[in-house]
């Protein structure tokens, strides 16, 4: 018995020693992210990073957006250190940075060329001038329209349309009998869903979420005009069931030729022009997100960024990865492997100085001008006390923004009048602001 046992025990000890030594050699970086096309490419290309850094092992945790946000919040708040790199947005970054939850990104190598990143994107990912996350890809919003339908109807889309013009086009091109709808817009309730679009509309109509004393403005004239306009244009000239449509639903409608116009994230430019997923790939035109009273804040600003939580136990390795995945070299690698149009958009000036990119990606120049126009600190016609174009960068916003989103969605589906919806919304927001100590 002893004799047969001994070698296996020795083997097991050896195996343990080997696995311990490799564990000591390689540091594991756990990355929490979402399943967007650009992130899928990052995961596929990360073997190049691992080859260049044999001492770093990458572990991917891919989750649904809201689950990811919830996981990251719990993880950070409980300081449990499950993640070394987190994919977060422009809403969370300044708040979490302010809470001291994220490592500041201040030791970046010169070769990283942080000044190449758009100032608006850097600003949106900073708190008090300190950068807390590096942008992986960023987006504003713009108008997508069907050049063929416009031509057939003898219409002309201006480069910078107004909402009034959008309505005229929508009326002219709405043909529900043939499943062709004048305009597709987000209707699904949520602070990052319908409220992203609705807030840019309110900005364009000259409104804002708060005045300088943090009093909610949702019952004011600009909100009434904007929401009445939204309910009219989407309810009468949009697809049926629009109040449950988000980005993906509208993308599917547009790609199957059901929408004459669509206003949404600039990142969709590469999807609607991609023949493998769009039936109208060669018929798509691009224009600015519509303005009305003002063009300030009429197009949003968002970034998917990579941040390192203070609870990480592999901070140096995590920073190696984060700087690699958001670098110019990474963009070159993507261009080599997937074609130049697949470069993560919206983050670096150098991308848009590349003539080949501008020539290949038809949507690039409109993306660039929208990105340059968006300013998270000067987004409303009248002065407002908050940062963020299509959101308010304060901790309670994700909660009351979603409640307001439900009211707007309810008004769209006709369950409640616009007046009633805005009165309810205004009350909720003021109550939350009083509770959070913003108002006396």
């Amino acid at each position, binding site marked *: 018995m002893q004799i047969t046992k001994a070698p296996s025990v020795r083997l097991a000890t050896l195996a343990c020693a080997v696995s311990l030594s490799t564990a000591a050699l390689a540091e594991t970086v756990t990355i929490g992210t*979402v399943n967007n096309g650009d992130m899928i490419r990052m995961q596929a290309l990360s073997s190049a990073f691992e080859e260049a850094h044999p001492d770093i092992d990458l572990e991917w945790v891919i989750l649904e957006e809201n689950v990811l946000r919830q996981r990251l919040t719990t993880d950070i708040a*409980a300081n449990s250190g499950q993640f070394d790199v987190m994919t977060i947005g422009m809403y969370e970054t300044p708040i979490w940075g302010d809470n001291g939850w994220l490592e500041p990104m201040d030791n970046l190598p010169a070769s990283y060329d942080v000044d190449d990143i758009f100032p608006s994107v850097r600003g949106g990912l900073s708190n008090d001038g300190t950068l807390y996350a590096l942008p992986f890809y960023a987006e504003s919003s713009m108008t997508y329209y069907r050049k063929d339908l416009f031509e057939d109807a003898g219409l002309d889309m201006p480069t910078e349309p107004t909402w009034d013009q959008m309505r005229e086009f929508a009326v002219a091109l709405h043909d529900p009998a043939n499943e062709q709808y004048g305009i597709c817009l987000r209707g699904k309730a949520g602070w990052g869903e319908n409220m992203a679009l609705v807030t840019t509309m309110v900005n364009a109509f000259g409104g804002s979420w708060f005045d300088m004393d943090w009093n909610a403005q949702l019952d004011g004239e600009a909100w009434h005009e904007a929401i009445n306009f939204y309910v009219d244009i989407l309810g009468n000239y949009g697809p049926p069931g629009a109040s449950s449509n988000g980005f993906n639903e509208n993308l*599917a409608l547009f*790609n199957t030729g059901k929408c004459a116009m669509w206003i949404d994230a600039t990142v969709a430019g590469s999807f609607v022009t991609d023949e493998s997923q769009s039936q109208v790939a060669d018929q798509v035109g691009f224009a600015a997100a519509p303005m009305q009273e003002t063009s300030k804040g009429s197009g949003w600003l968002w970034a998917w960024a990579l941040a390192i939580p203070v609870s990480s136990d592999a901070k140096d390795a995590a920073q190696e990865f984060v700087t690699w995945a958001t670098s110019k070299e990474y963009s070159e690698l993507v261009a080599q492997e997937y074609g130049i149009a697949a470069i993560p958009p919206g983050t670096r000036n150098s991308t848009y100085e590349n003539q080949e990119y501008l020539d290949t990606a038809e949507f690039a120049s409109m993306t660039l001008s929208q990105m340059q126009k968006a300013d998270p600190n000067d987004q409303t016609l009248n002065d407002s006390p908050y940062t963020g174009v299509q959101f308010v960068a304060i901790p309670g916003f994700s909660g009351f923004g979603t409640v307001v989103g439900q009211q707007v969605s309810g008004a769209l589906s006709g369950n409640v009048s616009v007046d009633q919806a805005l009165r309810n919304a205004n009350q909720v927001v003021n109550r939350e602001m009083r509770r959070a100590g913003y108002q006396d």
Partner: protein
Amino acid sequence: MDMHRAKIVKNVSVTIAAWLIALLIFFPIFWMVLTSLKTELNAFSTPPSLFFVPTLENYLVVFERSDYLKFFWNSVVISFGSSILGMLIAVPGAYAMAFYPTERTKGLLLWMLSTKMLPPVGVLVPIYLLFRDTNLLDSKIGLIIIFTLINLPIIVWMVYTYFREVPKDILEAVRMDGAHVWGEIRHVLLPISLGGLSSTFLLSLILSWNEAFWSLNLTTSSAAPLTALIASYSSPEGLFWAKLSAASTLAVAPILIFGWISQKQLVRGLTFGAVK
């Protein structure tokens, strides 16, 4: 003659109704499998296409991008582990409650069940902190413990109900023959209630296999089961419905097949009480 005809009509209509309900319940799964065999472009076409050239590409992508076997193995370990542990605790507990009830037994049973009335998210933070402090985050043992605790009230209730069906006289007779408690349970009680016990085990297995809230919140990578694999294919910006369907099909397939094989036990066990 008329009665005979009425009987036939009744049988036929019952059969049709049963088929309709079965098809209705099965439809989402059927649609998921169908979507998983489409191209992404086909998957979101309206009106939905019923006839198309099927492709296995989505399955290839899922296997290429994700370590399916790791997720699968985690699911197997966690759901079998928690079901076995649950049965080990529930059988003695239910035995005591069924054969030696006190005046508080009913209250105890109800109290156990009341833990199921709280929405799980209400205890997420305390459990998360406990797991952090005991190093159970992202471990299979941690999920086995949680799933056992979640399913225990149901398991105890079911086993208790089956044990109550067993005539006390039989056990008394065995005891007269000089059997000890353990011998009584092993040689008489367990064989008699095997159908009920195996269906309870199966139900616990299915519940653990499909549990998503805790497995998404308490795991990151090494202990993540198949529900986490499904979640990883949902996208905020991108149309990957066919791939999501392929991942979902791969996640439910093993338990579906297992359930199919053991459906006799399941149906027998679930209708045991009703038939009597």
